[in-house]
């Protein structure tokens, strides 16, 4: 089982990286996690973003956060991507699989996955 000693090791490892964290937040991924989002399957979508961003080493430039009801419940799970100097991108009817694709193509590659955006789903 995971031990508290392993947690202490994470603390040691993170010590040097604390300064780096300050500069984070070029890209902000926001997942709608109100009742409507949760019921539509937002939890695995959020988990996919949190894990994917960590695994791809994107933690320094991407922050993943949760928000309440965005107001378009029929399109849940909804994910918004905010990037400084660019227009907001709204992904709708997301799944964990689609999230992986967005991480790869959009967050890493810089190109919006148009077929999952709200514009293509109306």
């Amino acid at each position, binding site marked *: *089982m995971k031990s*508290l000693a392993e*947690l202490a090791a994470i603390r040691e490892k993170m010590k040097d990286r604390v300064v780096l964290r300050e500069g984070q937040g070029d890209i902000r991924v926001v997942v709608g996690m109100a*009742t409507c989002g949760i019921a539509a399957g937002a*939890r695995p979508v959020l*988990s996919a973003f*949190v894990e994917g961003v960590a695994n791809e080493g994107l933690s320094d430039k991407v922050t993943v956060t949760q928000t309440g*009801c965005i107001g378009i419940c029929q399109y849940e799970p909804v994910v918004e991507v905010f990037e400084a100097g660019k227009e907001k991108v709204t992904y709708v009817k997301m799944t964990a699989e689609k999230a992986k694709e967005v991480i790869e193509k959009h967050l890493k590659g810089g190109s919006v996955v148009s077929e999952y955006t709200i514009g293509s789903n109306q």
Partner: protein
Amino acid sequence: MKELSLNVLDIAKNSVKAGAKNVVISIAETSDTLELKISDDGCGMTPEFLKNVTDPFCTTRTTRPVGLGLPLLKLEAEQTGGNMSIESKAEELSPDDHGTVTRALFYKNHIDMTPLGDICSSVVTLIQGNPDIDFLFTHTSPEFEVKLDTKELREVLGEDVPLDNAEVLVWITGYLKGQYNGEE
């Protein structure tokens, strides 16, 4: 909701919204029942608000006048022959001792019982979204006992590393799953 653990995530968010600093989530199972209890030290509710709180048209959300969180939990409990109750003390009426306790009792062998599902994922999601709140999670049954106290984790991590650090979240998931699997 397809899983009870999704209701847990949803209801615990009410505590977050109430400005709670401490949220206690406990699941206690017997061979026949499952009792879910979520308590917090948030702003609480006035008796008037409490009376209407399971009405779907009673909500604090601002995007539309419908809130289904508590009504859904109530439905899921009652469809197994169980029940749901809420006690609350409003901060405005009781400044020194306030907060809300939501209890739901399920008869888990009933055919309409909603499966608990991935509760580890709900706990981790709550911590990820609210790294400054302390969560105490316990899940007991005749076969096992699972416990996670973010206060203990904070002591180990110190002030430098937040609980929503990606590696910490991975550790928490492993820590919880290890307890469920009975690892030493």
